[in-house]
């Protein structure tokens, strides 16, 4: 699995990378780490990801703006939104824009692995 991690927090990006690399997801290659939507688009152009973990609240281009643009350049990317914005309307908006899953913050290691496994099982 080629993974792109998008979050404005360095602590969260590193944590996601550590969890996926020691888990039950099989071999994982981190193809990029991005701090906002613009960086995510640049990273996805350089190295196509299979899976993207996407924060929503970020400086510059936020996650909701990034999702359709990222899918326009990488239509087969599976996007898992990981956000503290846990209200139902935000989750629905993200899914309507093309995200495949939504994991609320805070999350523990098992919840992240389960969310990614579910996403990968359901992928085309």
């Amino acid at each position, binding site marked *: 699995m080629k993974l792109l991690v998008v979050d404005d927090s360095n*602590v969260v990006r*590193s944590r996601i990378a550590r969890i996926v690399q020691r888990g039950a997801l099989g071999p994982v290659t981190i193809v990029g780490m991005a701090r906002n939507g613009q960086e995510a688009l640049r990273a996805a152009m350089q190295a196509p990801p299979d899976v993207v973990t996407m924060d929503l*609240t970020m400086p510059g281009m936020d996650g909701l703006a990034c999702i359709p643009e990222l899918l326009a350049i990488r239509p087969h990317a599976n996007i898992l939104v990981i956000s*503290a*914005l846990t209200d139902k309307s935000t989750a629905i908006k993200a899914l309507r824009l093309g995200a495949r899953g939504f994991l609320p*913050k805070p*999350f*523990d290691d098992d919840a992240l692995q389960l969310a990614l496994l579910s996403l990968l099982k359901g992928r085309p």
Partner: protein
Amino acid sequence: MSGLSESDLRLFVDSVTRYFAVTSRTPPLISAAYLGTDPVPRHEFNGIVSFSGRFSGQVIVSLPAMAVRELLLIQHETDLSESNLLDAVGEIANTVAGNARQTLGSGLEISVPVTSRGCKGRQPPVRRHPYVISFRWNTHAGLVCVDLDRVA
């Protein structure tokens, strides 16, 4: 402008409790909730999220350095630099504030977090007496300052 209801405040208590319970498997013990006076007490590392829309003001999560370091070590983070400690406390503030939208409503806009060490960049409070929720997590003290008013 009007203040927050008890259930609005309960939301922030629940949110900070959940953050520590999920991230460290040790929930904090809420030690007090009171109306603070300016200057509201602060610890060394502060994460601040501003609210606009149906509510106006800010929510501040404030922790001593030792608490943030311990929280990072629990997450197997080895970078304990000042910038990572600030990043971590900003992420806690972002999570606590973001979770609040679930109940306060999506008409509420929240900013990306800003962080500060000590008293740098301290803004005057919106409320004369902001709500202060103090807690203990493991052996460390921490607080959440809810300096918000409902916009009429």
